[in-house]
């Protein structure tokens, strides 16, 4: 059957919709079965490995469950009251918040600068893209290996590069004043390429006519940047900030591997505390309780972001 004939029939069946009630009812029941069958594999996995762990984790957080299997009895809210009185949890939440602020700002601004520069059309496009994006493809372990080596106090490239500027060697990852900055710089290097690509795509979608019109009105390149480019990138910036804040709040891997939360706990993020409570302290119940405090924080931050974006676009 040719598609044209088919289209004609579709048009017909649409105009004669009311007359076809019985047929569409049969179709609906067939769709119902097919729909459930199509969705079933995903929903089964979704229930087994997402919904169930979430629910069971809530239950665990009200018990004294340990990794060894003992202590599974109900303890009410005591894990939560303990968590709220636990200075280490507050400290780790504060570290996570600090990391989020310190990393989000450069991860947005440097990405924007990179995209603006590459979008000028300077030859070597593939090289720029590859340089800035390649680190994003690395596993956190590789990133940590590279940068632990870069930051090595005696043998690292960072101190070697800073020496000609008269800067004395710094033990970046062992110094309380510098460890968080060092981890942020590593994270910037690792993940900025993703935001860079989002900005670059958005830049290439700004209509050329706007720049032509502005040029005719006598606007120079800087004027065009601030009155056309930056405003046009607004929605992209919102998207990038939202994704970045959530991603930064979940930080764990690179910090765990580079500083193990140290020195003296100044870099330990909340996810590491969840991990340690459960898998080095063997306290599953307590770890689950901190997990849900963290989860609540993620939900609150997401809702706040949603409200701000809703108001902006309204």
């Amino acid at each position: 059957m040719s598609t044209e004939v088919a289209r004609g029939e579709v048009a017909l069946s649409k105009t004669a919709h009311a007359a076809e009630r019985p047929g569409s009812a049969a179709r609906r029941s067939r769709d119902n079965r097919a729909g459930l069958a199509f969705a079933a594999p995903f929903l089964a996995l979704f229930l087994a490995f997402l919904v169930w762990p979430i629910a069971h984790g809530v239950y665990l957080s009200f018990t004294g469950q340990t990794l060894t299997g003992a202590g599974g009895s109900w303890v009410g809210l005591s894990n939560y009251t303990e968590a709220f009185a636990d200075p280490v949890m507050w400290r780790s939440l504060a570290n996570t918040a600090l990391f989020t602020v310190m990393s989000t700002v450069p991860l947005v601004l440097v990405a924007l600068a990179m995209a603006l520069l590459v979008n000028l059309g300077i030859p070597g496009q593939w090289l720029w893209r590859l340089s800035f994006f390649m680190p994003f493809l690395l596993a956190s372990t590789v990133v940590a290996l590279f940068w632990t080596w870069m930051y090595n106090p005696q043998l690292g490239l960072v101190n070697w590069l800073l020496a000609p500027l008269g800067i004395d060697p710094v033990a970046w990852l062992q110094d309380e004043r510098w460890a968080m900055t060092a981890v942020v710089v590593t994270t910037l290097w690792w993940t900025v390429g993703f935001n860079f690509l989002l900005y670059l795509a958005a830049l290439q979608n700004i209509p050329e006519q706007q720049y032509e019109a502005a040029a005719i009105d006598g606007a120079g390149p800087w004027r065009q940047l601030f009155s056309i480019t930056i405003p046009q990138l607004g929605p992209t910036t919102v998207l990038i900030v939202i994704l970045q804040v959530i991603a930064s709040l979940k930080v764990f891997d690179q910090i765990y591997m580079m500083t193990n939360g140290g020195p003296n706990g100044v870099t330990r993020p909340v996810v590491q505390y969840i991990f340690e409570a459960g898998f080095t302290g063997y306290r599953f119940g307590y770890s689950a309780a901190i997990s849900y405090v963290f989860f609540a924080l993620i939900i609150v931050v997401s809702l706040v972001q949603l409200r701000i974006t809703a108001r902006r676009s309204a």
Partner: protein
Amino acid sequence: MPTDVLTPEPSTTTGAPHTVVRRTRRRVTPGRIAALVVLVVLAVTWLLPFAWALVTSLKSEAAAGSTPLAWIPADGFRLDAFTSVLSEGNIPQWTLNSLFTATAITVVTVATSALAAYAFSRLEFTGRRWLFVVVIASIIVPPQVLIVPLFYQMLTLNLVDTYWGIILPQVIAPAMVFILKKFFDQIPEELEDAARMDGASRLRVFTSIVLPLSRPILAAVSIFVFIGAWNNFLWPFIVTNDTSLMTLPVGLQTVKSAYGVQYAQNMASALLAAAPLIIVFLFFQRQIIKGIATTGFGGR
């Protein structure tokens, strides 16, 4: 937001060259030279850790651990670090483990997500609306929150230290269901109706019409899931103790301390672990870049 991958139009399905119309002000001005200088500085900075790792990996351990730092070692470049890492360590085994688990995760995730996304997009079934809301809402759940209950579940199911234990908790990707549903929503329904009139079943329509039209988005989603699974650290780290079952990122983390001060070997292992995905990227550069640009997701 660009949406060209998300619209099943001929330009994306027939593989027509994707040319970006860019402003062409190619005059050499002081401003452009300054921009070029900044770009070069940035690119060199971003490539420096790779270069330093490569140079270190090609040194002898003695040269790698000596001061002053040298880009060209006095005793010459050598492949010793690579040969000893490959012959003594578990890197080949871990690479296979990563390849197997990441492939299995990708196949199961993409297959189940695509089927579910089609159901949510086209098939009016009981509870569809609220089920979809639940699935979308679950995008917000950070995987880190689930490590304790998931590990407890794997203990109960006796799946700790098994491939299943690594794979199963990683196959649920609500964000991918969302991306795929958005794509399927834009495929004109008339294309499917024609085949349905001929008596083709829903499954038939899905496999012979919908999937071929969705190749670009399926490629993008598959690459994201694969990158995410290949690089995932926390979950495989928690669920495996058996060295022979570890994935690359987990295995590397455990030998890092074993190698101690063997800097050349550390960098050689890191580079060997990085190589497969960089090669994948060089092959699929266009799909990855377009995929990220159009979906805002990157597999992490």
